[in-house]
């Protein structure tokens, strides 16, 4: 599929501070692309440049082949941005907010009214549309924040940590709406430092750290770079047990004083089945057992040596 967004060797410096250091990636038309990284990794800076809010120090971003620059009004019409912070007028109603933002993009009259109604239904706020936003809960404001970026039906939706401080119900609502938008043809770039969200929503992910894109691939491919883990305790670790565990394919045993035994394995499920069979065979009681499937958190840890939420 053709790329809607191309980022090429993008640099951004704030004085001596390097916010982006040669970031390059592409987002295909119709894709949900996740940008994962800890706070301060450069995600917001990257989105600001792509959404024509900030000039790059070097490199360029292109949308549909057009170079992104601060004065390109036509390009802005194709972009919707959901800022990290709520960006709504508290004193206006939900309907007035959406109407106002729609008019900024040239919408008017019956078309605008219809579209505002559609968006209100989509974000589940049609029953409270005429109440002042100041009276909304945090989750409702987040949903409206998303709605405000959707009114003008952008081709590319840039979402900067859109679920910050959101309750699970509103989060699910937002996720459903993102998927629905995507099915309708909107390309989504979704940034977050919550790896569960990105993993659940985005088939393809880029991992950003200290201004560098350290990985960019489909999620299964990224996960494949990490091993699974089985952690367990038994009353006594005998040489027979060590010998049997060593026979589990594509795995290795890690032992440390006073810590549970760990089996690092390529695939957790078959390894776990074999472990349980060995323990039963040796009549060893299992004192504790836990497993860790490979996830983006561990991918990040593996790539950077530090946890994602540090």
């Amino acid at each position, binding site marked *: 599929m053709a790329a809607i967004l191309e980022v090429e060797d993008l640099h951004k410096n704030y004085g001596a501070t390097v916010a982006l250091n040669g970031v390059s990636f592409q987002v295909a038309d119709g894709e949900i692309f996740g940008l994962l990284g800890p706070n301060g990794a450069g995600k917001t800076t990257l989105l600001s440049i792509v959404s024509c*809010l900030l000039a790059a120090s070097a490199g360029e971003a292109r949308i549909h082949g057009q170079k992104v620059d601060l004065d390109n009004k036509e390009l802005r*019409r194709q972009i919707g941005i959901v800022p990290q912070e709520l*960006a709504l007028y508290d004193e206006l109603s939900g309907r007035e907010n959406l109407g106002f933002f729609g008019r900024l993009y040239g919408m008017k009259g019956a078309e605008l009214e219809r579209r505002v109604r559609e968006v209100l239904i989509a974000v589940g706020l049609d029953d409270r549309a005429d109440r002042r936003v100041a009276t909304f809960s945090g989750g409702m404001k987040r949903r409206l924040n998303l709605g405000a970026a959707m009114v003008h039906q952008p081709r590319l939706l840039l979402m900067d940590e859109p679920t910050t401080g959101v309750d699970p119900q509103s989060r699910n609502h937002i996720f459903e709406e993102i998927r629905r938008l995507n099915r309708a043809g909107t390309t989504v770039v979704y940034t977050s430092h919550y790896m569960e969200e990105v993993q659940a929503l985005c088939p393809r992910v880029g991992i950003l750290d200290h201004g560098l894109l350290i990985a960019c691939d489909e999620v299964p491919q990224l996960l494949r770079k990490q091993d699974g883990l089985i952690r367990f305790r038994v009353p006594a670790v005998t040489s027979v047990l060590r010998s049997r565990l060593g026979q589990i394919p594509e795995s290795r045993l890690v032992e440390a004083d006073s810590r549970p035994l760990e089996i690092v394995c390529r695939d957790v499920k078959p390894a776990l089945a074999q472990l349980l069979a060995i323990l039963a065979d040796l009549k060893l009681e299992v004192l504790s057992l836990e497993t860790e499937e490979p996830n983006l958190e561990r991918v990040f840890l593996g790539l950077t040596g530090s946890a994602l939420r540090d």
Partner: protein
Amino acid sequence: MVIWTLAKKDLRLLLGDRRAVVILLAMPVLFILVLGVALGKDQLRISIVDLDKGEYLQSAGFPPEKWSKMFIQDLKQTAPDIEVEILSLDQGRQKIDARKRAAVLVFGPDFSRKVSQCSFLQDGINPFNRSGVNLALLDAELLRDETQGTAAAIIEQAAQVTLLRIILPWMIGRAFEKVGDPAFLDLLAKEEQVPSMVKSFLNSPLIKKEQKTALGAGLQNALQGLFAKYNLTGKTWETLTQPKSAARAGGKDSGKSALSQNPATDEEGPSFLNRGDLRYQSLVPSYTVMFAFFLVLTVGWLFVSERRQGTLKRLRAAPLSRTEILLGKMVPCFLLSLGQGFFLLAAGKLVFDMKLGHQPFWLAAVVVTTSTAAMGLSLLVASMARTEAQVAIYGTLLVLVLAGISGCLMGDPELMPERMKLLSRFTPHAWAMDAYSQLLLRPEPNLVLVAQACGVLILFGAGFVGLAWWVLRLD
């Protein structure tokens, strides 16, 4: 179109902001109301202790009353803005001691007798000295509160002028009567410079007393003819300063008829608000101008909240240019300021009965150009401030300092010393007040000055907007 969309939204937010309504509309009306009432009437109050026993000489039925009464009536006639308060001596002293009065004029028991004795003749009292009238010679005294020197000096000058106005015509009239007196002819006959023929005539035993009296009357008439613009026998300032023929046509010259024309009273004005008083002609425009610049706070808060709410980011991400965003902010500021200006002038008219003059077009022009300057300054402050606290602190400071320098804070720039008036030229307020005072205080306003002030206000506005454009950072 998109500018109007932005403007409509801001207008909606501004009009829904009770804080803005209070600051821009209610506060100035309240200030005008409080100052209008607190300043009392537009009057100079002169407190008098009248101990005058009223022992006086009458000449041809003049004066009709004792001289202290003549003084009081003349004082009231001087201007309707002078309020006369009669006190007892104890009250007068108490009020001076309590600093409730700057000065109290005391007429002693012999005041009428002493004034009666005032004359240009050798045996009369010459009440004049370098300062005007020597009060001590007339058994009068001015009690002063030395801590209110300026106010006491104003009262003293008003009293001096009134004394001159009642004593001088009295002395002239009496002196003129002497010209026709046979005793004067006897004196004339003794003068060496007088030709011998005249001396012989005056000293001749053949000349009867009646003939001498007729000669005196002739001399009087000749002198009166020579000074035809004055009625030298008038004895009051009013009759002295008009031709005798006019005085005759005007009726009897008793002084009483003229005095009764202006029945000024000691009573308070007709209403609590003193509606229609002259003070409102400067109070209303002063606070209209001062509070026009309070727009700085309202617009500053609007800008800052746009940043704080993150909506500025959405505006920047939308297909809008920087110019459109700035214009979208300028239009509602300007409209709000216009609304405020016209509202306050209307309130001035309806609540305080301020006279709007005869130049409505120019009055509107002053409102429009003042709003231009206020809008410019508001945008400049809004461009620089990053937080609501900054807007509140710097905005209030700026607005109050400008209002203080321009004199608007005091409700009347004319109260300022000349040096401050010169400094005030650097504030838009002073130019706006120049225009307003021409239009609201002068019967024939100088429209060139009004136009000049409007031009300067536009320049202020343009300068502020230019600076705001330069300073404004949307990111």
